[in-house]
């Protein structure tokens, strides 16, 4: 490592903010992919992969990705829930890779729920 200046210290701190918000439990947005047996069968794994790729590409900050068990809506799988800080959670169903990309762009980063894809808003918080 090169010699650091005080600005470097701040920069490093910033750079890692993301990871630590994860470990410290503070976040701006949380995306839960429901990965029960049914979800995986319906392709939740691919959705997860696409989600991670998109988030990485977008350089999204303050977003945590979680998995949960079956959400109970097996017919609409794959499912995901997006919770923005201070807003009610929004569930999206029958996801595809394309849909999840849109959701990341518009909802997670943009802050506006993607109405046309939303399944339900304000239900119980996923685990």
């Amino acid at each position, binding site marked *: 490592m090169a010699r650091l200046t005080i600005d470097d210290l701040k920069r490093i701190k910033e750079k890692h903010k993301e990871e630590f918000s994860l470990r410290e439990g503070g976040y701006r947005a949380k995306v*839960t992919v429901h990965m029960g047996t049914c979800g995986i069968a319906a392709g939740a794994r691919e959705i997860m992969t696409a989600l991670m790729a998109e988030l990485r590409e977008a350089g999204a900050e303050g977003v945590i990705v979680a998995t949960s068990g079956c959400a109970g809506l097996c017919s609409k799988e794959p499912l995901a829930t997006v919770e923005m800080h201070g807003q009610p959670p929004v569930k999206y169903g029958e996801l595809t890779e394309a849909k999840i990309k849109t959701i990341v762009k518009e909802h997670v980063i943009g802050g506006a729920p993607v109405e046309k894809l939303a399944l339900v808003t304000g239900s119980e918080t996923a685990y």
Partner: protein
Amino acid sequence: MEQYRAHLMICAGTGCVASGSLKVRDALDVEIRKRGLEKEVKVVLTGCNGFCAKGPIIAVHPGEIFYQVVKPEDVPLLVEEHFIKGRPVEKLMYKMPADKKAIPVMNEIPFFKHQVLRVLRNKGMIDPDSIEEYIARDGYQAAAKALLEMSQQEIIDTVKGSGIRGRGGAGFPTGLKWEFTSKSAADQKYLLCNGDEGDPGAFMDRSVMEADPHSVIEGMVIGSKAIGATKGYIYVRAEYPLAVERLKKAIKDANEAGLLGRNILDSGYDFELDVYLGAGAFVCGEETALMRSIEGQRGMPRPRPPFPAHKGLWDKPTVLNNVETFAQIAPIILNGADWYKSLGTEKSTGTKVFALTGAITNVGLVEVPMGIPLRTIIYDIGGGISKKGKKFKAVQMGGPSGGCIPEHLLDTPVDFDSINATGAIMGSGGMVVMDEDNCMVSLAKFFLGFTADESCGKCPPCRVGTRVMLDTLIDITEGRGKPGDVETLLDLCEDIKATSLCGLGQTAPNPVLTTIKYFREEYESHIHDKWCKTGVCRDLASFEIDAAICTGCGVCARACPQKAITGEKKQPHKIIQELCIQCRTCYDRCKFGSIKIGPGLKFAKAGATNAAVADATAVGGPAAVADATAVGNRGEK
């Protein structure tokens, strides 16, 4: 920077490594790769989490899910359930002892819930080998502030203002120590960190050095400016290889990052820091002895005055602080003296880390605000006595220099002065909990054996005095105690405390003094009745089965190594005294408490009169000497 959806923090402290955490890590690597999760789940090795008894420990973020006692064979299930299916695995969670209810979230586990983390602020949160992660958690901000924005006096004033007292044991105000040394004029000064954690039963310093080495380094950088030292050493026990490795890496990284060494952060301050490996001598925890050791000599203490603030290492002004003390400096500088004082009591500010061990349910490291009652630590955090049906007897604090605190003093707040008032000392924070099956005379003997062995031999009160006390205690535990022994011990303790050269000798009598103070009847019973009621002292115990309680389950008979227990199934059993070797196995195994402990039989046979005792002493004399030597000697080289 890669992003992951989950961080799996696996503890790689000495305790967890010993329980196999690295093997779990390997299994995780394999499994995660197998499942194609390597870009989603990051596995981080952290330092000690404190909850060592339950290792290997894993915490998963987000969610703070806490897994304990994870074995490699649990890994496929864990990955499958938690990371694929998103279902935390209850089987691996902490369970409340009372109702066996699983508690998934770490901070809801009582062990963690009552803690306030300052020293251990980064435990389980960062990879100790990563300076970046440390920096990400405010690391080196305080050093930058101290070096670039604060004057020497401002640093000292802040530390003084915080009221922090040295965590090594004696509790000398850190700021004051720094101030004395800053005022000593010299061409060279030294700043030393004592990582020679030698108190048996204390391991907080090891934990900090392993889990958060940079916090120690940063505290030292700040201290070096405060006193004007340009050279420092961290003196670490060679028995702590992991701590040494982590510290060396951290020092290397900090040097490369310009946070240590020449012209730190372009502030114009230099501070060169090295790790110095101890070579196994408890007395090197004493500051003047530690300095002799760094000078390459035998670690024998020097009389004070002159104090190290004037003549320390190589006769230059020197400050020595403990690991835990240094780890607290950065937050004090960053958050201010008032923030620090907001916890704790007036004279003992801040938090203290305790190592909770012994006959307690939750063994581990806990950090709590000063001033909370012992009872809270032992019952709420520690979960009380581990063995069902056994009563709390005492808690030993301060190791060989400390003492035992009995049940009726459990509401004593943990702060320097209140603990001192009991006859124990805060020490480095080891708390060894004892239940009713522990013999206090034997415990005193254990500690005297320790100090007699670890005495450097420089002054007669310690060198010979501890040996003489040990002898007397051996006599008492082996049936050769005589009336007046307790008084002789008390008298000797007084003189040894008064005349010993260093803290080791001056405090060596404490375990004897406190056990006599609170458990004198145990001594009397050993001496007069030849009866160790806990059955620990073999010569002073006999075992019998209470037929009224015995269910005839046969557990004792199967466990008895001597086959000295007979009886029909479901009928009360009986111990054949001629075969019994008083090993206490039956007592430990019996779930019904049917084994009763009586006085030592060989003395009973002789008629436990004083005349007989005198006889026993005469007979036992030479053999006892041989025995005592065997117990105490380190074995000549």
